[in-house]
């Protein structure tokens, strides 16, 4: 190539772009393949990434879409803590400080500075969820101290030498020390892979050219984000929703109010009026407040722009005063941090709907809808911890498209559920059903997606632990679309279903042999007036069993039988009335 060109070579920029994506993908696959815990390799509760020497995001490998911000903030905090002059080749920096990562103590975040000879040129970073970090096992927590080991910013490794004392402290504080060390090794594999590949790229194309390309990639992302923000009419857009409760003060609703200000090619997401931090473990740190804004913004302005980089967010301002439920301060409990932010993201979409109805989406089930079970397995008399879910629920309809059914919430990405055949071979369960919930999708000209029901019978007693939200704040419809069914958790004892709970949080329940529980995920809200949905489409929904005959009549004003045979005359009459 020409070596005299001014500015970055656009071809090298594209090669560097592909290179960055490939490096973070390789970091991700190395982590997934070597990790010991299924939360990493099945639930994909991790994120890897490459960052500039200042901690700006160059490329993130997901993982967890909601962790878009956590690692960058962690690197910036580490730089500030030590001072750049005290970060040396061979160091590995560690923390799980929940108020820095914005999430919970289970997220151990390792960062490795990348040096080209003596010059710091970036960081490779890996956050991953450990299944246990100590602390109390069951029930709700009301401060951070009961949630386990807190590791401030430390050097896990100093100039190539591991600090064994830190290893000892970790081992002494977690329930499964060998597994934890397995996950730790997997994380180190990921960041050393990142370091090696990044250096290869820099050596191949030159430090200056790679830096210029990275800056070019960020500028391109910024231009695209600005252009797409500019296409949103200026204005102040507001919306409100709520969470069911904080698990401590049962049935006390928690308000979520967001304000979005669009001015030219800039957007501000103001979360000042989101509820104050709460007693139960649903808080998250300010990093997550920013992450909520970024996730919503990316979905609207650059959903398929890769790599995920800081350039995309230069025209976004997030206003998050401390002490809100997504900017909680110590000693707020944080263990179930991931639930509330999803509803905030949904509420931002709701706020923007009057401005850009063609780009937003109705409310979704917005919860992992998982249950954690533990007990003794009679097959081998061993203690086990198992998960049911993520169940997958309904997603909202859009202006021109039905919502998608049975898909993980926005906190999760390429996250998989567990096959019934796998669960039943490992644990003393009998899965009675895993089925779509008829009528759970919100009615609309475009119908919301359906939620699911997953019923689990005990073949031997076990303890159930579930902390599901959005039973009462049901996924809303937009522009005349109806709301969907909410999430729920229900029990069956001695053949009798108990469904009348104040919320969907069953923090400790013993399920006896032959008894069962079910998790039910909500649907997605509808979009537009259900009476505008073509009668033939509604009748086909009935034929497929997505919508009942009754709902067709009541919600869509369509008359048909269970096999979808449309009564056109009766439908016309019904639709003409009112």
């Amino acid at each position, binding site marked *: *190539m020409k070596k005299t060109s001014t500015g970055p070579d*656009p*071809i090298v920029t*594209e*090669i560097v772009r*592909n*290179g960055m994506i*490939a490096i973070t993908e*390789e970091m991700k*696959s*190395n982590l997934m*393949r*070597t990790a*010991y815990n299924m939360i990493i*390799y*099945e639930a994909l509760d991790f994120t890897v990434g490459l960052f500039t020497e200042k901690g700006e995001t160059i490329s993130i490998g*997901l993982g967890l*879409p909601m962790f878009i911000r956590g690692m960058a903030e962690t690197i910036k905090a580490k730089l500030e803590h030590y001072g750049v002059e005290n970060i040396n080749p061979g160091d590995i920096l560690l923390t799980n400080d929940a108020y820095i990562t914005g999430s919970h103590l289970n997220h151990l975040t390792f960062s490795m500075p990348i040096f080209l000879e003596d010059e710091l040129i970036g960081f490779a970073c890996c956050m991953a969820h450990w299944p246990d970090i100590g602390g109390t096992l069951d029930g709700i927590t009301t401060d951070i101290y009961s949630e386990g080991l807190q590791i401030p910013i430390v050097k896990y490794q100093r100039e190539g030498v591991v600090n064994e004392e830190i290893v000892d402290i970790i081992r002494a504080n977690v329930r499964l020390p*060998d*597994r934890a060390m*397995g996950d730790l*090794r997997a994380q180190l*594999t990921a960041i050393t892979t990142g370091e090696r590949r990044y250096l290869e790229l820099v050596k191949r194309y030159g430090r200056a050219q790679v830096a210029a390309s990275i800056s070019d990639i960020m500028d*391109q*992302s910024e*231009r*695209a984000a600005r252009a797409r923000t500019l296409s949103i009419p200026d204005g102040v857009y507001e919306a409100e929703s709520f969470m069911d409760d904080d698990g401590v003060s049962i049935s006390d609703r928690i308000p979520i109010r967001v304000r979005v200000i669009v001015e030219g090619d800039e957007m501000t997401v103001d979360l000042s009026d989101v509820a104050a931090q709460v007693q139960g473990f649903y808080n998250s740190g300010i990093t997550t407040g920013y992450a909520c804004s970024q996730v919503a913004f990316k979905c609207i302005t*650059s*959903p398929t*722009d890769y790599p995920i980089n800081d350039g995309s967010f230069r025209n976004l301002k997030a206003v998050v005063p401390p002490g809100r439920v997504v900017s909680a301060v110590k000693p707020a409990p944080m263990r179930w941090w991931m639930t509330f932010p999803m509803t905030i993201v949904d509420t931002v979409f709701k706020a923007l709907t009057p401005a850009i109805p063609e780009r*937003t989406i109705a409310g979704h089930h917005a919860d992992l809808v998982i249950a954690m079970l533990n007990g003794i397995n009679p097959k081998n008399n061993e203690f086990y911890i198992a998960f049911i879910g993520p169940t*997958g629920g309904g997603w909202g309809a*859009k202006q021109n498209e039905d919502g998608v*059914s*049975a*898909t*993980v919430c926005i906190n*999760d990405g*390429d996250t*998989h*559920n567990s*096959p*019934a*055949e*796998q669960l*039943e*071979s*490992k644990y003393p369960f*009998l899965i*009675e*059903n*895993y*089925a*779509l919930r008829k009528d759970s999708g919100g009615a609309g000209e475009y119908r919301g997606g359906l939620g*699911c029901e997953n*019923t689990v019978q005990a073949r031997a007693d076990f303890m159930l632990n579930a902390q599901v939200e959005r039973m009462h704040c049901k996924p809303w419809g937009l522009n005349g679309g109806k709301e969907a069914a909410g999430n729920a958790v229900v029990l069956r004892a001695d053949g009798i279903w108990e469904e009348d709970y104040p919320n969907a949080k069953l923090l400790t329940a013993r399920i006896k042999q032959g008894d069962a529980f079910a998790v039910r995920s909500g649907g997605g809200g509808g979009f537009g007036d259900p009476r505008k949905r073509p009668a033939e489409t509604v009748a086909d929904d009935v*034929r497929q*069993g*997505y919508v009942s005959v009754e709902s067709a009549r009541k919600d869509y004003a369509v008359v048909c039988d269970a096999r*979808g045979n449309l009564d056109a005359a009766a439908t016309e009459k019904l639709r003409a009335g009112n």
Partner: protein
Amino acid sequence: MASKTGNGPGIRLAADIGGTFTDIAAFDPSDGRLVFGKTLSTPDKLIEGIVDGVDKAGTAFPEANLFLHGSTVAINTMLERTGAKTALLITEGFRDIYEIGRVNRPDAYNLFFQKHQPLVERALRFEVSERLYAEGAIHKSLDEDSVRQTCALLREEGVEAVAILLLHCYANPAHELRVREIVEEELPDAFVSTSHELSQEYREFERCSTVVANAYIGPKVESYIAGIDDRIQEDGFDGSFLVVQSTGGLYDGDQAKRQCVRMLESGPAAGVIGTRALCDAIGLENAIAFDMGGTTAKAGVIHNGEALTTGSALIGGYERALPVQIAMMDIFEVGTGGGSVARIADEGGLRVGPQSAGAQPGPACYGQGGDIPTVTDANVYLGRLSPDRFLGGEMPLEVDAAGTAIDNKVAGPLGMDTADAAQGILRVAVTAMSHAVKAVTTERGLNAGDFAMVAYGGAGPLHACNIAREMGIRDVFIPHSPGHFSAFGMLFSDLRYDYVRSRFTRLADMDFSAIEKVYRELETEGIAEIENVSAVPERIVVSRAADMRYVGQEHSVTVDLAADLFANEDRAGIKERFDAVHDLRYGTCAPQERSEIVSLRVTVTGMLAKPDLQRIKQGNEAPSPDAHTGVRQVRFGDERLATDTWDRSRLVSGNKIAGPALVEEHASTTVLHPGDGLTVDDYGNLKISIGSDAS
């Protein structure tokens, strides 16, 4: 099928039907002669294409005793959704799992994401009242009357194919078998498929998707195979008709009619088998099989002389994929081919592929009205492809049209000159294709630099040396007739039957006699199948493997296990093998940790006699002057160099050519960079040593 043959004299014919062309390879064992024929694949006359191709190759069906066939008919029926009206019968409570799937959402920030679309609509999915425990014991017995009632509905609906999936059938197939009997009684004309015939591996969604795919494509594939069988018999064929599976192994035409889903990827798999055959012939242990065509580039791996396979694949792109849980060649594919278009993305960067210009209008240089530049246009503009010798000169290429398209769509917007932009398009394409090579090597713990690369497909030889440089590969082989390589590979396939059965047991508690019983059952079944095939193998080879993991892990790895490990009840030996495989694949292992077995695998291979390849004429180091066809200005790195062009058909064994050079043949051009050195080997393959020169 016809009478028992296989190894005797008589011509061995192979036909590979791809998207664009039907390739025929014919091998005559009496003199080791190999001939090829190529015809266009016309969708409604695929069988005629075979017959024409055989004719073009200068042979005829009565002279043949083996007819080997691979086809895109199965995969196209699935992707284009032109299969039968299909119903699914499934265990009570699980009607929706085929639609629910694994609930993942890979396109994480896209609110307009899409999920897989089932091949059977919900209204045609019915529950069967029955239930087994994971151990195979009956929790709820089968309600046969309800199955018959459901069948009445299926008749009413005019259902043509029925897929049956019952939970835990791998532990006990009795219910699936009985449901099948009932359905066959009630709907005698329907194509009926049960999941355990195809996969006895746990994971109900993946197995369900597999059996539905089989039923859905079944009627069409069945009549396609029957049509070929009739037609070639009419033409006087009296040998064995065998079909290539996605593993590259062969199975009987009659079996292909029932287990259609096994032939989804037959063409690409045959290319890897061809690579293995080439490795055998020239004594290579490790090679990357690289296949580049018009729309995609694919990479597979030969490691220690064996083609690496996988237990499942995703059909139709990751986001919306329908999984198929059967053994397949492990091939990674990227959407980069000769027809891939270059464009400037909204963000301002240069992107190449995965969109393709297709055949109409095709690349700009085809002169058919295309104005969007493609990888082929970049090659033409840079002088790498001859405008007047493409497809043997049958299709003149327009260099100016290529230049204009590159100027308008890439060079102009980026403020570059045309040649730099063309070079840029190639560089971006090469990095994307290198990703496919990395995916099959680096990502499983193998170092690509330790492998040779065998490059084929129409566009493989054009880009092989670029990719080799990118990956640190030192040796590249361009086989004889790279455009017919899949058909060539078929000639070297063996009969092959793969079995898997999930069986969960910790290694420490494993009951060897129970495990032995399962292996024996699977092996006996495989041997019986092979003995049923009309072709007679030289010998039958049985191999065992197990999917293993550490206790607590979910993902398992497949470990090949020698039979004596079981005969000696050698737990420690099995564990050692597992630790070693884990270490190779993931770079770590934990010898102190407990392990468990998840599934048992058996492969039964009926080894067919292999063609003995004919050696070509020997010559001097200097190629004969009449092989030299001219000099062209070709761009390498920053400058255009005067580059010799050679006619491959006139090269003989021992000829050497130094880069820069172009070696041209009917459907392909091999590009040698400055510093590269080429030698023609005894079989007519081009062996290229990659120079240190980076360009």
